[in-house]
């Protein structure tokens, strides 16, 4: 088996893409560094959550507020979207054309929006049950961590639409390719963050 050298994290374009593959190295490394910085940001927010999980101040706690079934569906949606984005990356690398790429990206977008819709639904239910962020330190920490991830996903969705626009306008030029590849990293990274949220916040909270 003769594999190509890996230039950067994520699916590499490979030598067949020539200059685009070379240009990817620094851009993808830079974006990866940014993601690591973002990971520290999430890490601190996680730490805040873990240290204030008991600070419910007499208000509702995890058992009163979390709807594990809904969250499980959200998790599956995100997992599926990671897979569809993987397919989009393959379509970017091997083609043919941009139709297949756009198709997988739109599928990812739909899954992402579905995730966000369910999450907003969860938050609304929590609000209705008295789980507002100004109620307690615990709820403040919760509404720092989970919506922060949600905001990232929302930003990813906007970015995805912009990339579709760029592909429609300019075709698959270097910048569009690099954009899709960075968004792929971003998307998979957010999936990892969600796994941590699912485990630390929801599963451990209800265990």
């Amino acid at each position, binding site marked *: 088996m003769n594999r190509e050298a890996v230039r950067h994290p994520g699916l590499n374009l490979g030598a067949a893409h020539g200059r685009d593959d070379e240009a990817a190295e620094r851009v993808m490394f830079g974006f990866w560094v940014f993601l690591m910085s973002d990971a*520290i940001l999430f890490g601190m927010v996680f730490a805040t959550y873990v240290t204030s999980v008991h600070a419910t101040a007499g208000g509702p706690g995890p058992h009163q507020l979390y709807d594990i079934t809904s969250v499980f569906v959200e998790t599956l949606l995100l*997992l599926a979207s*990671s897979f569809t984005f993987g397919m989009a990356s393959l379509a970017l690398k091997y083609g043919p054309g941009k139709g297949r790429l756009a198709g997988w990206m739109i599928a990812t977008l739909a899954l992402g929006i579905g995730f966000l819709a369910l999450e907003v639904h969860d938050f609304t239910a929590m609000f209705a049950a008295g789980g507002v962020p100004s109620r307690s330190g615990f709820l403040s920490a919760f509404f720092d961590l989970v919506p922060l991830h949600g905001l990232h996903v929302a930003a990813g969705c906007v970015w995805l639409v912009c990339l579709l626009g760029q592909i429609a306008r300019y075709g698959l030029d270097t910048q569009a390719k690099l954009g899709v590849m960075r968004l792929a990293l971003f998307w998979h990274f957010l999936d990892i963050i969600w796994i*941590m949220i699912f*485990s630390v916040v929801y*599963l*451990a909270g209800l265990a």
Partner: protein
Amino acid sequence: MSAPLSDRDQARRREFHSYVWGAGLALVLTVVPFALVHWGGIPRIDLLVTIGVLALVQLLVHFRFFLHIGFRQKREDLQLILFSALLLTIMVSGTIWIMASLALRMTLAAQP
């Protein structure tokens, strides 16, 4: 068997399988802890440990199959990840350690 595949097709098939494997493993690793929590029956501490271990395994699965991180790539990427993991561990565990100590001593002080 069909006609021998070109290198490019082979690579494509291999990478496709990587994503399928990743998705499959991730699914299992998500469903198992969910089922354990949902249907219960295990002591809480064991459950927490299981959730933690499975989450870490799933983290590695995502890194391996979705982000294509391995030991055969450019070294600086791996260095970066390991360094970030080190700092993340220091910062998060340090925070939890410090805040737990403070919380403990506050409750001690509050008792008569």
